[in-house]
């Protein structure tokens, strides 16, 4: 109960701050519209107001405050505007039986999600394979690990268009390029986590297997792999969020018409800030659901293995 109150307090502070931020952010636009509609605004004329402080304008024109939370194309949409847009493009569409229409976030979300999941699967598989190689081979560690690290220092936004162009030139398009970018971002945490996990058994554990004259293979399947499970899940949670970012970024440079990235891009073309914010929230909610789902799987797997608390 106490936790709930604390959580709600933090949430309401964020929302209050957000509403407050809407005032200075939107006041100039609101005053210009109001003046055009014939209201009395101080000082008169958009030019006069251009260089004035926003907070001063809010204080001088308190009548305009409600309007800062209700603009069509605000600089910063208010929380309830975003929530309304979210509902309009999700729940309301479902009620109308148009869940998968092109205006529905379920449709766009699914387009991004499918690329995310494919990329995540590729990235995780690749990450685990690389980690296994790195743990078992010094040469592999010295030759692969530096590249894996370097790969993550390149901003994905710079690399994504090139991946798409290169893949397009060899005839690959659609979901694959997005999944590749997604995999590019998600393999790294899996490599790092799995290398650590596969190396987590201590000297004593390895000595014990040595006294049994166990093969490297047996050591891997019976000791290293099960010991790495908690590390794997920690990495997967980071990896899936990175995958989603990758899929969204992959939608930006192509001018894609579908997907959360396309919604973001479309919103920014047409100044539809509410649409941008609702797409952002849709992405955040999607990421939260994916991470929560992984958390659930983690608990089930570890409990089955006897390691769940």
């Amino acid at each position, binding site marked *: 109960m106490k936790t709930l109150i604390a959580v709600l307090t933090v949430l309401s502070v964020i929302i209050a701050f957000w509403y407050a931020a809407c005032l200075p952010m939107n006041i100039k636009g609101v005053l210009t519209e109001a003046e055009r509609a014939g209201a009395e605004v101080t000082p008169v004329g958009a030019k006069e107001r251009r260089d004035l402080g926003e907070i001063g304008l809010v204080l001088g024109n308190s009548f305009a405050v409600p309007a800062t939370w209700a603009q069509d194309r605000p600089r910063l949409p208010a929380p309830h505007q975003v929530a309304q847009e979210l509902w309009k493009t999700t729940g309301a569409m479902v009620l109308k039986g148009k869940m998968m229409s092109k205006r529905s976030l379920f449709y766009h979300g699914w387009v991004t999600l499918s690329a995310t999941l494919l990329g995540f699967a590729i990235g995780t598989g690749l990450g685990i394979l690389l980690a296994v190689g790195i743990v078992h081979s010094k040469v592999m560690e010295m030759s692969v690990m530096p590249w894996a690290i370097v790969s993550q220092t390149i901003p994905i936004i710079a690399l994504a268009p090139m991946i798409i162009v290169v893949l397009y030139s060899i005839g690959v398009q659609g979901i694959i390029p997005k999944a590749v970018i997604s995999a590019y971002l998600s393999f790294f945490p899996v490599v790092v986590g799995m290398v650590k996990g596969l190396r987590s058994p201590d000297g*004593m*554990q390895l*000595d*014990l*297997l*040595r*006294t*049994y*004259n*166990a093969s490297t293979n*047996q050591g891997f399947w*019976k*000791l290293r792999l*099960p*010991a790495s*499970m908690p590390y794997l899940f920690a990495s997967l949670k980071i990896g899936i969020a990175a995958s989603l970012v990758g899929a969204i970024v992959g939608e930006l440079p192509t001018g894609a018409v579908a997907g959360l990235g396309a919604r973001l891009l479309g919103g920014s073309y047409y100044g539809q800030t509410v649409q941008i914010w609702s797409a952002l929230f849709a992405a955040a909610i999607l990421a939260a659901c994916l991470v929560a789902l992984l958390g659930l799987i983690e608990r089930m797997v570890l409990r089955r*293995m*006897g*390691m769940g608390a």
Partner: protein
Amino acid sequence: MNIETTTQADVTKAVVEARNLDLVFPTSDGSVQALKDVNLTINKGDFVSFIGPSGCGKTTFLRVMAALEQPTGGEITVNGMTPDEARRQRAYGYVFQASGLYPWRNIARNIKLPLEIMGYSKAEQEKRVNEVLELVELSGFGGKYPWQLSGGMQQRASIARALAFDADILLMDEPFGALDEIVRDHLNEQLLKLWARTNKTIGFVTHSIPEAVYLSTKIVVMSPRPGRITDVIESPLPSERPLDIRDSPEFIEVAHRVREGLRAGHSDD
């Protein structure tokens, strides 16, 4: 008497023979002589304790026997082979200071670990698990996970794991070091019973004088810098040893000799 000694001689067979064994660890600030000129014979069925302060090489010697360390000089044979050959033939059960049970396996499956690795059949695995669980008085705990057991029970489970396959040498590196005195007494008593029933050769590293004297047929006193043997004491105690034997004059005399040996090793620092 005469007849008895001959039969004894027939049964007695050197399991471990170390001759002028040296082991030097190279470290960043010079080399460390972990073992110097170690000579020792361990016979079949012996219970040998290694006692001495930290750094005297007692654990190192145990590890050399198990082929977990390579000596840099001298010779050692186990069952007439090199330690590594003996390891490949799975001649050792090794018990470490920590139980090292896998948290993702229950006790029965932990004990099955070496059996799986060595390719025993499923039926044989079940049979052996039940046997060794009974041997360490843990029958009925096979389905429990390690965290559901006390420290002493975990260590018993790890002994059961080492007994599950047919290694005739049991090497124990301070197996009860992390346990409290009362639990330790109880486990020592159990270990003696177990040794009598299984007729294994046991190498046992310890810090504790009473533990060494109570358990062993042979006590090897070691001293550090360089790690070497200062005294080997053949215990005069009978094989039947109730816990209160520790108050007998013979026991106190052996303990005294061990203490003298340890003190002599310390005189140079």
